[in-house]
C-alpha cells in the first residue's frame, strides 16, 4: 500500500472528522407480544438486553483497533403500536419506560421505535401510542418516536396530520427539547439507522446491524482541491469521496455484524452533519459556489450533492438502504445555523431543499406560539413532497415554548442549537380540520 493512501485515510479520520455516525441494531419484538402488558414488557426488556448485550463492547473495540470513531450505538425496535396492541393497557408510556431501562442497561445512546404507521388508517394500538407520545417522550431521555402519516401507495392520512400537529405542541408544552425525539414521516423506511426516525420494519429479519456513515468534512475538503473547475468535476469528486466513505461503512458493518453474530443489513449513505466546524453540509454547498446556503441555486447544488453521494456510495457497498441522502438539520449544522441567523435561509427555502435530499424539515425551531394547525400544515406540505415524489420526507420541528423569533433553543452536544425561525402566520386551520385522507397520487403523467 502506498504511503499517500495511508496518509489520506488517516487525514480523513483525524482532520476531516470522518466517522461512523451510528451502528444501529434492529431487533424484532414480535415474539414479545402478550395480552398482559406487564409480561410483554418483561419479554421486551429481556430480549433487548440479551440480543444487544455486546453491541457497545464490540463498537468500542472496533473504535480502538481500527481508529475510527463510532459516535453512536443505537437500537431500533418493531413499532411499539403493533407490539402493544394485543394488551389491554390504556396508554403505552410503560413501554417507553421499558425501552429506556433496556437502553440504560446496555449503555446505548438512543432507542427508536416508539412508533406507529398510520398512512392509511389507525388500528387500536396506533391510537393509544400516538396519545402516549407527549408523556412517553418527555419522561424518557433515550427513547425516540416516529409516526408515518403518508405514503406514495396510500396517500396522506389528514386525520393523523391534524393529530400530529397537536401532539408536537403538547410535547413542546411539557418540554420543547423532547421534540427532537419525535419525527413525522411520509414514506418512512424500515431499515433507517438514524434517529429519531429509526424503527425495525416488519419485513426485516429478527435482528440486523445497520450502519450510518457521515463525512461532510471529507467531501468539503475534497472539493476545496477543485475550486473553479466545472460542475462535472465537482460531481466526480463527490462520487469518489462518497465511495471511500461508504467503503468504511461497509467494512465496519461487516466487522460488527460478524462479531455480534447478527446479519449485516445496510449502509445508509447519508451525509450527516454535526455542529462542529468543518462537519457541515451547508459548507459543502458554499464550497460548490454559493455565497451562503439559501441563495438562489441552493436547491440545484444540493440536488447535485445528494445524487453524487448516492452514485459514489452505491458501488462501494453490498446493500444500500435507510434514508441515504444529505441531511439538512438546521440545529446540527453550523453552516445552516449561520445562514438562518443572518437571514439567508428561511423555512420556505428549506422546504424546497427537502424535495431533492433526505429528509425533511429537520431540527427546526419555530416560535412557541405557533398554532397546532400551522404545524399540521407544515407536516402536510412535507408529506405531499414525499408522497408525490416517491421519496421519504419528514418533519422534526420544535415549537420553542415561551420563545419568539430572534431567540434560540439549545439541545446540547451533537444536537446543537437552533435559532427560532419565523413561520408564515396565515392559518391553514380550515384545511387541516377537514380531516379525511388525500388520495394516493397517480403514477403517470409526471409533470
Amino acid at each position, binding site marked *: *500500500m502506498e504511503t499517500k493512501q*495511508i496518509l489520506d485515510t488517516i487525514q480523513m479520520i483525524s482532520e476531516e472528522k470522518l466517522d461512523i455516525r451510528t451502528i444501529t441494531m434492529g431487533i424484532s419484538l414480535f415474539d414479545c407480544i402478550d395480552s398482559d402488558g406487564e409480561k410483554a414488557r418483561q419479554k421486551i426488556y429481556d430480549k433487548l438486553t440479551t440480543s444487544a448485550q455486546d453491541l457497545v463492547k464490540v463498537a468500542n473495540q472496533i473504535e480502538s483497533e481500527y481508529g475510527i470513531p463510532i459516535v453512536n450505538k443505537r437500537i431500533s425496535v418493531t413499532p411499539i403500536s403493533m407490539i402493544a396492541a394485543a394488551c389491554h393497557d390504556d396508554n403505552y408510556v410503560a413501554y417507553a419506560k421499558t425501552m429506556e431501562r433496556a437502553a440504560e442497561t446496555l449503555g446505548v445512546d438512543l432507542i427508536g421505535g416508539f412508533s406507529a404507521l398510520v398512512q392509511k388508517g389507525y388500528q387500536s394500538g396506533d391510537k393509544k401510542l400516538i396519545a402516549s407520545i407527549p408523556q412517553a417522550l418527555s419522561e424518557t431521555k433515550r427513547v425516540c418516536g416516529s409516526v408515518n402519516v403518508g405514503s406514495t401507495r396510500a396517500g396522506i392520512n389528514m386525520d393523523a396530520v391534524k393529530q400530529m400537529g397537536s401532539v408536537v405542541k403538547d410535547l413542546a408544552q411539557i418540554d420543547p427539547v423532547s421534540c427532537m425525539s419525535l419525527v413525522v414521516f411520509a414514506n418512512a423506511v424500515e431499515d433507517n439507522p438514524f434517529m429519531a426516525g429509526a424503527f425495525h420494519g416488519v419485513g426485516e429479519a429478527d435482528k440486523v446491524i445497520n450502519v450510518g456513515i457521515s463525512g461532510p468534512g471529507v467531501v468539503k475538503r475534497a472539493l476545496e482541491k477543485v475550486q473553479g473547475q466545472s460542475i462535472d468535476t465537482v460531481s466526480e469528486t463527490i462520487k469518489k469521496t462518497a465511495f*471511500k466513505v461508504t467503503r*468504511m461503512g461497509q467494512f465496519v458493518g461487516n466487522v460488527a455484524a460478524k462479531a455480534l453474530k447478527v446479519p449485516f443489513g445496510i449502509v445508509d449513505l447519508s451525509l450527516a452533519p454535526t455542529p462542529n466546524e468543518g462537519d457541515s453540509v451547508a459548507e459543502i454547498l458554499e464550497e460548490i459556489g454559493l455565497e451562503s446556503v439559501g441563495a438562489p441555486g441552493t436547491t440545484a447544488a444540493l440536488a447535485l450533492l445528494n445524487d453524487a453521494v448516492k452514485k459514489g456510495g452505491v458501488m462501494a457497498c453490498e446493500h444500500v438502504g435507510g434514508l441515504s441522502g444529505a441531511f439538512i438539520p438546521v440545529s446540527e449544522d453550523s453552516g445552516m445555523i449561520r445562514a438562518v441567523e443572518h437571514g439567508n435561509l428561511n423555512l420556505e427555502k428549506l422546504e424546497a431543499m427537502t424535495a431533492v435530499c433526505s429528509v425533511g424539515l429537520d431540527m427546526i425551531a419555530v416560535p412557541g406560539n405557533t398554532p397546532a394547525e400551522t404545524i399540521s400544515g407544515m407536516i402536510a406540505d412535507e408529506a405531499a413532497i414525499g408522497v408525490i415524489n416517491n421519496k421519504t420526507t419528514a418533519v422534526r420541528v420544535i415549537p420553542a415554548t415561551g420563545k419568539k423569533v430572534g431567540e434560540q433553543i439549545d439541545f446540547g452536544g451533537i444536537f446543537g442549537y437552533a435559532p427560532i425561525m419565523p413561520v408564515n402566520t396565515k392559518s391553514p386551520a380550515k384545511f387541516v380540520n377537514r380531516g379525511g385522507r388525500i388520495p394516493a397520487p397517480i403514477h403517470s403523467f409526471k409533470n
Partner: protein
Amino acid sequence: MKGTIVMKAVVTVVGHDQVGIVAKVSQKLAELKVNITDISQTLMHGDFTMMLMGEWNEKTTTFDSVKKGLEDLGKKTNLDIRIQRQELFDAIQKL
C-alpha cells in the same frame, strides 16, 4: 504456522523531528514482538511523519497491549503515535 494468528497493523508517528525517533519506536516494537514489514517517512504539514507496517502473532501478543505500549511511548516522547489494523486501509483504498 499452527497456533498463529497474524495481526497486521499500520503505525503512524507524527510530531516534531527529534534525535532517535526511528530507534525508539522500532525498539519498542521489538520489545512488543512486532515485526516491521515496511517503513517510510515523510513531512506532513511540516511535521515529521513516519509510517510502519507491522505484524505479529495475536496468540502471543494482544492488539491492546501493543496499542498501550505505543501510547505510553508516545506520551514519554511527546509524539502522536497511533496504531490501526491494516484491513481498514485496504477496505477504503482498494477496490
